């Protein structure tokens, strides 16, 4: 024992020291990422509670008397903002439901069936994602107008869902690929139709993927600006358009109101991401590990 001690103890100490260093570095990097990610959000929220004079004061006051004046101003001066939040919600929920429903069906088909047409259409799905959205708006604008769909929730729901259905299809395919085909076969042996197999067997098992898709589509639809700008005027106008108006290039930005609006806009999405982060991570890492 005594002979071994000189060899074992320094080795153990070195490993402990190394582990400690790794732990410190990891904690530091983790802290850095948290600060990097959370600082802008905190800055916006805190600034929304400061008076106009205090917002850009340097050095900033860490202790200040919070005020809700900007939220009051948002509700009075930009009184359309809260109505547009309702529009944002209708459009985001509608697009999420539509995109998820379409993606489950298409993901199932891509996962369980193989032929040349399907293989070719995957390329088409990916190619659609490569198109800059502004390009799509050029031919769409007169078409939407002719169909009398301008300034309706419906057109935004369809556009947002269409824009995301390709990626969501791929996500769903990856999730459904992981579900053993033997389950489909067992269900069919028991007399289930293809639709019943999908809704009663596949869907419950792929729910994590559906949730991931839903989060992606919801966040996109909630924040989207370009399509909303081009295809809405009044009735279906969404909240990001009002926020862009607060960033006024004629009179200058009212920063307090802007921060208040952004805080309100951020809340649902931030809460959604916090509560559903495991689904989000599952969606982002779907298919990354084979096995």
């Amino acid at each position: 024992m005594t002979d071994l001690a000189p060899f074992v103890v320094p080795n153990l100490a070195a490993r402990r020291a190394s582990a400690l260093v790794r732990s410190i570095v990891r904690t530091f990097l983790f802290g850095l990422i948290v600060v990097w990610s959370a600082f802008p959000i905190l800055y916006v929220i805190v600034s929304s509670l400061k008076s106009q004079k205090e917002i850009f004061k340097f050095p900033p006051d860490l202790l200040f008397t919070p005020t809700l004046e900007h939220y009051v101003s948002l509700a009075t001066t930009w009184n359309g903002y809260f109505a547009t939040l309702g529009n944002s919600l209708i459009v985001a929920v509608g697009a999420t439901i539509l995109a998820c429903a379409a993606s489950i069906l298409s993901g199932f088909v891509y996962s369980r069936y193989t032929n040349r047409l399907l293989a070719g259409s995957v390329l088409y799905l990916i190619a659609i994602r490569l198109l800059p959205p502004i390009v799509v708006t050029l031919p769409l604008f007169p078409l939407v107008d002719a169909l009398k769909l301008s300034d309706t929730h419906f057109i935004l729901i369809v556009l947002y869902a269409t824009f995301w259905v390709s990626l969501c299809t791929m996500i769903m395919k990856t999730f459904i690929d992981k579900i053993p085909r033997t389950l489909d076969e067992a269900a069919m042996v028991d007399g289930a139709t293809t639709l019943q197999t999908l809704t009663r067997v596949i869907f419950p098992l792929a729910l994590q993927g559906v949730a991931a898709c839903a989060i992606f589509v919801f966040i996109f639809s909630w924040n989207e600006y370009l399509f909303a700008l081009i295809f809405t005027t009044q009735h279906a106008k969404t909240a990001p358009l009002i926020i862009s108006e607060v960033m006024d290039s004629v009179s200058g930005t009212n920063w307090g109101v802007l921060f208040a609006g952004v805080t309100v806009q951020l809340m649902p999405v931030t809460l959604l991401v916090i509560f559903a982060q495991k689904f989000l991570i599952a969606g982002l890492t779907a298919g990354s590990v084979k096995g």
Partner: protein
Amino acid sequence: MLKRILATAMLVAMAGTAMAQEPRTLTIISHNVHKTAATGGDLATAQNIAGEWAERNNVTLNWVTLDIGPLHDRLLREMSLGETSVDLAVVLNTRVVPSVARLLEPLDDLMAANPIEDLEGISKGLLDATAIDGKRVAIPYRHATNAMLYNKAILDERGIAVPTSLDELLAAARAATHVREDGTRVHGLIITAETHVTPLQFLSAFGATYIAPDLSVHANSPEMIAGLTELAKLHQEGVIPPNATTYSLDELIATMREGRGVFAINPFARYTALNDPAASLYPGQINAIPYPTNVAGKSAANTEFWSWAIPGNSTQKELAYDLIRELSSKEATVRAALNGNGPVRPAAYDDPRIIEKLPYAAAEAVGLRDASIAIPAFDGAVEATALFIEEMHGALLGLKTPEQAAADLQTRTEALVAKSK
């Protein structure tokens, strides 16, 4: 007797029809400032000019407000359709160009039938710029004429007199540039060089013109080179902020409110925002005066302005024109100015209500008198602003000599103008 009975019956019938009429909706696309100018917005002293007209005419006004870029993007898309729901729009002067004017309703016939009150009372330069190929396509409504804004408190603190000439201004801006005890750098001159307007204003004080109303290009003039040379020097000396090429309106406002800038080139109307007691560290200390030149009694002022126009594919042109008439009247111009609008009728500045409300009224009247349009209306106007910004940045940052930048700007702009004619 019979005639009387018939006439009475017709009148009753007409009144009944009018009462039974559904309120019509007039859709207006504008920036929020125009809505505020026409309605008073949420101002305590709001003058709801458009609202009163709407009530009298049983019309519901549907305002669609957007920022400058999105506003024009949307308007042009709407005008490309066979028929649009937009009945009335405001357009910035640089967008009232022949290719756009063809999509706007010529107002001459409507004006002949129902003239606008004292049309000649509207600034001639602005009126001329909104008549394309002999047709009146828009009626000027709001101007933003550039002024010299300065922080009186800092000038007093540094013992600097308010400049009365361009040379004095440049000397004062240099003398006012300093570093405070807490390390804060105070810049003598603030311009928003991310756009063309304030740099062109700076250069115009040297007598420089970029493009004349007859579309002749003067970018390579000795005045332009002198102005660009001075601009580059001020930048090198730190009188202008190092990030001047990306300086936005928001930064200018913040810089002036916090006393990190002493002189600034911006419209007279910025006076209110810069002196706002709720936001400025120098409320009541920032003055606005006409931008001085080295010619006694003459100021240099570039102006940008907005006009009302009716899309050619609108379905309610007469109704839209009636609102333009209302908003362009002499009284409405004064009332809109009380809502914060830049009145396009110079006579409005003599109105006691405006003199009482706007401390800079007399100065702005002088500025408007001497004002010229920054860039005349032609199909390449927007591209010409981009060329100017690019070459001006080159000179300001020292990437090119002012002479080279001016020569390149001349060549490129001449080609652009030739192509656009």
